[in-house]
């Protein structure tokens, strides 16, 4: 009994030693061990194998923008920006085997602009050059744009290259009109008189989105040209992006709008300019309307012309940022 116990103990010690030895060996000879086990069990092992297959499919080796930089953004409206993008295609079966009518370019940023019929400008041996004009619009967004060049051969094998990017900067710009605003029938002491030919229409002619609070007006007084101490004070004007209501007292929307403040840029509440094709002229795409109200014409005003021409005053400035 005593001998049996000793034998068991020895067996266990040997078993434990073998297991620990294997564990130790594995820590030093780990590379390839799993592969060896796999090979032993299945008779197969993994090996790296270099394989070159040469077939006659085309490839696009070079893509480049050969025209102007758009680093400062697209041209201001109504001008468009024309980009010229060139690419070179290669095929072992000879450039004659390329289907030139399939050559096309896409540029993708916040939208996609494309030319589906690029011109084959040169072909020689295994290479063909293509030139593509892409029209970018003034509202095309700032950021990184990707160029995708594409061509097929006569067997409809295709080649595509998406390795080239370009950057479009940001342009803040706008145009405003009409050229004159009118307030007919104003008498001294009059209140809440709205302009009869507003809105002042702002069109976004760039690719910058003008958020709410970023359309501001810096107002000045309209002083009497004979008696400059009399004036239509800046603080008596208000501006709103909206109109309507009964124009008596505060019920007239623009008369309850943002009150002007001399020499301080006042943000017109809610007014904003989206980017887009303002020529749609729907009052919202790339457009904002501003409505003006003369809240009070002082009863002390005398018969004379009032304007911003006085040397202490300045033109009202409409600012976007």
């Amino acid at each position: 009994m005593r001998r049996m116990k000793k034998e068991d103990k020895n067996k266990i010690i040997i078993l434990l030693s073998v297991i620990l030895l294997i564990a130790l060996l594995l820590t030093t000879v780990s590379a390839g061990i799993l592969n060896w086990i796999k090979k032993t069990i299945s008779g197969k092992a993994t090996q790296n194998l270099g394989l070159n297959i040469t077939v006659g499919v085309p490839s696009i080796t070079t893509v480049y923008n050969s025209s102007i930089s758009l680093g400062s953004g697209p041209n201001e409206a109504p001008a468009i920006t024309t980009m010229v993008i060139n690419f070179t295609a290669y095929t072992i079966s000879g450039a004659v085997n390329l289907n030139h009518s399939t050559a096309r370019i896409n540029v993708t940023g916040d939208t996609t602009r494309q030319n589906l019929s690029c011109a084959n400008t040169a072909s020689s041996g295994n290479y063909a050059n293509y030139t593509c004009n892409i029209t970018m619009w003034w509202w095309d967004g700032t950021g990184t744009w990707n160029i995708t060049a594409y061509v097929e051969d006569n067997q409809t094998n295709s080649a595509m290259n998406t390795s080239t990017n370009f950057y479009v900067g940001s342009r803040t710009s706008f145009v405003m009109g009409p050229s004159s605003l009118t307030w007919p029938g104003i008498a001294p002491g009059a209140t809440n008189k709205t302009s009869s030919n507003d809105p002042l229409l702002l069109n976004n002619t760039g690719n910058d989105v003008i958020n709410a609070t970023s359309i501001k007006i810096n107002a000045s007084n309209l002083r009497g040209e004979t008696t400059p101490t009399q004036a239509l004070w800046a603080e008596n004007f208000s501006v709103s992006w909206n109109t309507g209501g009964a124009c008596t007292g505060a019920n007239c929307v623009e008369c309850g709008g943002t009150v002007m403040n001399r020499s301080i840029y006042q943000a017109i509440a809610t007014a904003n300019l989206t980017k887009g094709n303002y020529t749609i002229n729907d009052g919202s795409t790339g457009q904002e309307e501003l409505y003006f109200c003369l809240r009070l014409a002082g009863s002390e005003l005398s018969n004379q012309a009032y304007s911003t021409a006085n040397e202490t005053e300045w033109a009202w400035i409409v600012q976007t940022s």
Partner: protein
Amino acid sequence: MITNKYCQRIGILTLFIILLSSYVSAFGVGSAYHKEYPLKISPGETKEVIFNLQNPVGTDITARPSLTKGSEIMQLTDSKDIAVPVGSSIDVKAMVSIPSDTKIGDIYPVEITFTTVTRSESGAFALGSSVGRDFNVIIVPTPKEEKKLEEEKAKLTEQKPGVSGTTYIIGALILIAIILAILFITKKKKRK
């Protein structure tokens, strides 16, 4: 008499109002840097920033630049009024210079405005336009410093290898050995 005087006053004020405002502005400023695309620059470095002014339609304009924020790091190479004839595109250059003792990670907001210079005429309510451009200037390490940081990061990554399949096998074997040892000791105690 009073009525005539009052009517005269109404007439003159009306005349003034009809003369109000005669201006149409088409004016824009473009640049590579803006609110979502800051300028990254290192301490001791100087970079040129270009603002492109365009006036596609209407009449010739004169724009007056004004740095409203960030004048401690950015200066216009020419701060005079800029003539922008209709149909033209004019580049206005500014230099951003960062002192060499500036801290990495510091952010400087920069704002520049271009305002049309508008002459107010008698009887007119003149309107002008202004375009503001603002962006941040972020202080980043020099390329040399950045490379050094990347190397240090790579070293740290090398020192922390992932858990391999072999490690799992070793762990399992050690666990089996421990379980067998516990079983042996328990059996031995029971026999006693």
